[in-house]
Structures are given as structure tokens and as C-alpha cells.
């Protein structure tokens, strides 16, 4: 399956066909999620309306972790089978993951203020998310460190895989830390059990975020492939009038 779609042309055809479906799905899910989250779902009996922040907070946090696992998975594929496509997908995923991580932190802060009375608490989840943001930024910096994308790719794979080892380490260690020093103030999603009326918008928003991520990666990788194609075309026919250099291909790389 993997090697089947690692063919750039096949991937491009697939991406072209999937993109409109995925973006339409994103829009639909997002509208439905917002409608259910902001209007139809009830306010929590303890937290009141602030529980509505959950519908943007939890999807962002889930995707923040999921995207990192995606990057590490793609890096492993690129590491073992040297598939450029996997490198491109990992590179395109990183800024999105960083954005989700930031959003998880930000929405967590505005949720924390009315519920805990503080914008920021040094508890397990928050600290590990902050570290995750640093890992993302470090990973992006590695991609931008060299003018030769092939060279950066090799380092980026290592960094992504080392980072993956770190994720459980961070998670467990801060859980330990938490149990030793701060037993309370763990993030609770609207009480121990979530009512179905709250699960609906939560899952809708999660699916919407996931589809958005899929669309961004699909279009991004397809663009990368097509830009590379144009560059190859230009190099094969150097006598043609020179078109402005594709700055995107370089500065992104």
C-alpha cells in the first residue's frame, strides 16, 4: 500500500481527487460542530457555558499529539525506505502541528482562567504540551537550517524520531511529578463522564480538525511535487526565458 502511493504521479492523482472531498467534509463538519457546540449542546451543570471551550480545546490537543506521531511515522518510513514523499508530508505537517499545539495551549489558558482561576498552571498536561511546542519549533528549525532540503531531511528524520521517544518520557515523568507534588488540578473534561449531547460536538470538531489537517497536508505535498516538476522542466530547457525563481521552494526548504 505504502509503496503503491509513494509513486508521485499516483499520489498527485489521488490527492487531486481527494482534496475537494476533504475540504467539503471539513466545512460541513466544522459547521455542524460549531452549531452543536455553541447552540444545541447544553451548558455543563458545574462549569456552565465554559465547557464549550472543550470543543475546540480537546480536538486541538489531540491533533497536536496525533500530528507529531504522524510526523514520526513518516520519518520512520523515510528513514527506512527513503521515500521523499514521506519527508514532504512530515515537513508540511510540522507547522500545522505547531499551530494545533499553540491553540491547545491558548484555549486551555482561556478555559483555565474561569474554571481554575488561573491562566496557567504548571501541571502535567500543560507542561508537556509546552515541551511539545518546543519540539515542534526545533523540528521546524532543523528543516530551515540548510539550503539543501535533502540534507535537512536526513537530520529532520533523526530529530523527529528522537522526539517520539521523548513524548512518552515527558508524559510519564510529569505524571509522576504530578502525583508527587500536585495531586489536584488535573484537566477534567466536564466531569468524570461526558454526556452524549457533549460528545456529539466534540467528535464533530475532532473530525473537522482531522480533515483540515488532511487537506493541508495533501495540498501541501502535491504543491511540493508540482514545484519540483516545474524546476526539473526549467533545468532541462535552460534556453527558455527565465521565470522568476520559485522562492517558495527554497525558503520553505
Amino acid at each position, binding site marked *: 500500500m505504502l509503496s503503491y502511493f509513494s509513486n508521485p504521479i499516483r499520489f498527485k492523482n489521488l490527492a487531486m481527487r481527494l482534496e475537494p472531498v476533504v475540504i467539503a467534509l471539513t466545512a460541513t463538519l466544522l459547521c455542524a460542530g460549531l452549531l452543536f457546540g455553541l447552540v444545541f449542546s447544553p451548558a455543563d451543570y458545574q462549569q456552565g457555558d465554559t465547557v464549550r471551550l472543550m470543543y475546540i480545546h480537546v480536538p486541538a490537543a489531540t491533533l497536536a499529539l496525533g500530528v507529531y506521531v504522524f510526523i514520526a511515522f513518516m520519518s520512520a518510513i523515510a528513514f527506512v525506505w527513503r521515500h521523499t514523499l514521506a519527508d514532504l508530508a512530515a515537513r508540511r505537517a510540522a507547522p500545522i502541528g505547531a499551530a494545533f499545539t499553540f491553540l491547545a495551549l491558548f484555549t486551555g489558558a482561556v478555559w483555565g482562567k474561569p474554571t481554575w482561576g488561573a491562566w496557567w498552571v504548571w501541571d502535567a498536561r500543560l507542561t508537556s504540551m509546552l515541551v511539545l511546542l518546543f519540539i515542534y519549533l526545533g523540528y521546524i528549525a532543523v528543516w530551515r537550517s540548510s539550503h539543501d532540503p535533502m540534507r535537512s531531511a536526513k537530520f529532520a528524520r533523526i530529530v523527529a524520531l*528522537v522526539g517520539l521517544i*521523548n513524548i512518552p518520557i515527558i508524559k510519564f*515523568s510529569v505524571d*509522576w511529578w504530578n502525583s508527587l507534588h500536585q495531586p489536584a488540578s488535573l484537566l477534567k473534561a466536564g466531569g468524570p463522564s461526558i454526556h452524549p449531547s457533549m460528545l456529539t460536538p466534540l467528535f464533530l470538531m475532532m473530525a473537522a480538525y482531522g480533515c483540515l489537517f488532511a487537506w493541508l497536508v495533501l495540498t501541501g505535498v502535491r504543491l511540493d511535487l508540482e514545484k519540483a516538476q516545474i524546476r526539473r522542466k526549467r533545468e532541462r530547457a535552460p534556453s527558455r526565458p527565465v521565470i522568476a525563481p520559485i522562492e517558495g521552494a527554497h525558503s520553505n526548504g
Partner: protein
Amino acid sequence: MNDLSNMVALIDRDFKLAFRLGGGWFHGLLFFAIFVGFTAFAMGPEKSVLAPLAPALVWLAAALSVQLASADLFQSDMDDGTVQVLTAEGQSLPLYVIAKCIALWTSAIVPFVVATPLFLMMYGLDAAASLKVAFIILIGSPPLALASLSAAALNAGIRSGGLLTSALSAPITIPVLIFGVGASMATLDADRLFSPELSVLVAICLLLFVAAPTFAALSLRLALE
């Protein structure tokens, strides 16, 4: 056999570089002392304030001075061709990394760990507690060194300055700090040396002994390409 004698020669060379006139062995110690002095100035002379924070402050000083000492550990060896010659000879790169780590640890880290009880007593801990905390820092110092050494190896290929070194080693340094401080606090609170935190610290240390040289060697190999 060749690998081993190379390792001994490398450690010997790094020692000579560190302990000659103008060598860097006391830089970590000096930084450590400055850090302790600064915190005392910033927080005031109150022993009741300083003593409970002493282990955390000393751990922080240790983590930062290790990063300082290892930031450009491989840079000079890359620039003068040492690494290139060693790989051409078929020297195993993970062993080379371990040799560098041993040299770094004994020449730059042990000096300030030895001085740690003194600083802890200046913060107001008693002698027995100071020795125990210093012992825990001694156990925690190899993982600190291994973490920043892996980042330094990446840095040798990417040359991004210090930004990447601290950003990439932070995720490993943070758990070491958490458990190190936790183990130190446990010795102070419960007056016992061995705590669950200490065993986790040892586990991280052992894990990094295997993982860090492998990854550092991989990064160095890429840097050579």
C-alpha cells in the same frame, strides 16, 4: 582493539586539552559558582528561604553548566578533521562519542559535582544532606551530559548556533531535572537516600547510555556527508 586504543588516546588528548593552561576544566565550576552567587543575591540571605530551594537551584545550575560545557563539543573535532580521519580508519563512531562523553564528564562535570556539597552548605543544608544531594547529582550528571551531547552532535551538522542545542536537549533534560530534584527532595524530607525517583533517574541514565551514543553517531555521520 584498535577502537579501544583510539578511545584511550582520544580521552588522553581531551584531558590534556582540558587541564593545560587555559583549558576548560574549571569553566563549569566557575559558572556553577557564579550561578549560586547570583541566586543568593537575587533571593536574599534568608536561610529559611534558601535551604528548601537549595536542591532545585543546584540542579538547575548543574543542567545549565553541562549545556554550556558541551555546546560545541564536536565542533572542533569536525573542523580539524579528527572525526573524518577516525571514520576513514574505520573507528566506530558510537565508541568515539562515548570517549568524548567520558572525557567531558571527568574533566568538566566532576569538578563542579565535587564542589556541590560546599555550595549546598552555603545555602544552609547540613553536611550529611549536602553529601546525599551531591551523590544524586553525580548520578544525574551522565544523563545530562548524554542529552546535551546528542544535541551537540546534531549541532555539528546543522550549525544553528545554540538555539537547537537547548531546544533539542530540553525534552530529555526536563525529566532528568524532575526526577533529580524529586530524588533530592525525598532524601531531605524522608531522610533516605534511595527513593522511587532515584531508580527512575538511574533508569533514564541507563537508557541514555544506549540511545544517546547511537543517535549522536548517526548525526555525526550525516554531518560528514
